[in-house]
């Protein structure tokens, strides 16, 4: 059933089989850049993202401030660079939570089978039927606000998708001859599950993780935009767009530029995910 995580479909230019297109490498470069922003923001800007400079308020993008300045005279480029920290960290946490929990559930469900499988998959069906944003908001209501809680909420909403994919892969791998052989040799079932089945099943999960990275950036920024994530004056991508809302009529750059950065990050993640998927299909 379709939820608000729409099947992302990436613009991968058709290339000869075996070579990776320019779109893929541009996407990798963009993600690498955003990760570097998140890890070492001071390398990319000399401006302070939080200290205000009233004399330079609401300047349009120019030589001194490539992305312009906000209503308090803060350099928008610096705020976007430092904002990557909160946004990307929350996204990574969300994907890790969803992937770890989902992979474990899928592994147990597919490997053990029987009534446990039936129960777990019914729960997964139910979770997939509810839009991810509603699940995340429900969790935020229960946990409270903040970047970490938003990350958890987005991650929990992603568990069901990972569990579904992992289980399908485990069922596929389980029937292969080497698993039968390991079972016949009397290898412990837990060892087979973790050492034999998991490595062969993880490929599709990683493709989904790349896709989910884009979805999670959107979800985290939407929740921050609604005011449930990062707290001002700390920069965060979704929050930056929300902050610029008051100045829509006069200062277009305050919303347009951070939004473009989010869109670029999501597109790049989708292109990478799609490339992995196409290649795994070619080889598999």
């Amino acid at each position: 059933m379709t939820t608000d995580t729409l099947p992302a479909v990436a613009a991968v230019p058709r290339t000869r089989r075996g070579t990776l297109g320019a779109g893929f490498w541009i996407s990798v470069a963009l993600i690498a850049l955003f990760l570097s922003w998140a890890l070492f923001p001071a390398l990319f800007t000399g401006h302070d993202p939080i200290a205000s400079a009233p004399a330079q308020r609401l300047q349009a993008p120019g030589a001194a401030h490539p992305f312009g300045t906000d209503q308090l005279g803060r350099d928008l480029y610096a705020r976007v660079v430092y904002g990557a920290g909160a946004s990307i960290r929350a996204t990574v946490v969300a994907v890790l939570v969803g992937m770890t929990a989902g992979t474990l559930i899928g592994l147990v469900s597919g490997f053990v089978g029987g009534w446990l499988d039936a129960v777990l998959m019914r729960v997964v069906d139910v979770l997939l039927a509810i839009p991810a944003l509603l699940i995340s908001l429900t969790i935020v209501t229960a946990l409270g606000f903040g970047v970490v809680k938003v990350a958890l909420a987005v991650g929990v909403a992603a568990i069901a998708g990972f569990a579904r994919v992992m289980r399908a892969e485990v069922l596929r791998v389980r029937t292969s001859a080497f698993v039968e052989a390991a079972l016949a040799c009397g290898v412990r079932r837990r060892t087979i599950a973790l050492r034999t089945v998991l490595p062969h099943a993880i490929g599709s999960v990683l493709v989904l993780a790349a896709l989910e990275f884009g979805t999670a950036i959107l979800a985290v920024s939407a929740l921050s935009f609604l005011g449930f994530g990062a707290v001002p004056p700390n920069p965060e991508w979704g929050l930056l767009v929300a902050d610029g809302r008051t100045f829509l009529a006069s200062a277009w750059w305050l919303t347009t530029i951070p939004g473009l950065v989010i869109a670029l990050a999501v597109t790049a993640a989708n292109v990478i995910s799609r490339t992995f998927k196409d290649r795994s299909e070619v080889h598999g």
Partner: protein
Amino acid sequence: MGAPARYVAGRLAQGAVVIWAAFTVTFVILYLLPSDPVSIMLSQGGDSTGVSEEAESRLRAEFGLDQPVLVQYATALWRALHGDFGDSITLGGAVIGHILQALPQTVLLTAVTAVIAVAGGVGLAVAASATRSRTLRRVLTNLPSVAVSLPSFWVGMVLIQLFSFRLHLFPALGNGGFATLVLPAVTLAVPTGAVVAQVLYNNLSGALRQAFVEVLRAKGLSERRILLGHALRVAVLPALTLVGMNIAAMLAGAIVIETVFGRSGLGRLTEAAVSEQDIPLVQGVVVVSAAVFVLVNLVVDLLYPLVDPRISHRATAAS
């Protein structure tokens, strides 16, 4: 009972399971996590030290929180079956009243969104199928993948900047009449329209390769007549299903969109309920969203035979 009636009954039962599941999931998250309405109410009051333990336990008893969990669940489910989700903590009054008051605006928004998504998606797919320019086709077929990567709140603001502030075509905010509906509906239609365009384009390519198209060509029909009159009719059905499936996503998307455009409705109510941690209201919203989703998909299913005479629920019910 005839076959169509049995089919509808089966679908209603499935729908009831989805709604029950939505209730159960929200109950588990909202009431079993280490927070409950009383502790949130008390912490919102500022210093919780001022509240005596006696008063707190009286409040808990009032909400039934001193009961065992399963009893709480059964009571809540029984009440929800009668449309009673309790009272809103922050707004006062029955949750269901607030929801029913907000629902029409959002249903209207979703309906207009669905129309725009279908029109835009069909238009894009037909244009991509009809064009002879390879470059244009590549641009048109890649447009949807870009569209689903855009943050919806940002799309909304860019549209406000362009069409409200620069061109003064549509009002930026509010719920006054049809003009205020256009920009939010277009924004909300972007992701669904993108998926419709994509699926429909693939279906059209498939339909144009079918044998009946060769027959039509042999009969001398123009390519345009074949595309619009015949292939489109075969290809459009799965795209309609997609819209039905995306209704839940649109309702969720309305939370963000109604906030951006300052519209009142179910989405705004949800946003307010979450910011105030109004647990009964949040649960009511999720369950009602699930119910709307189930109803819309049931209607879409029943409309199928009207669009495509090859489908009848007699056949599906028998198989």
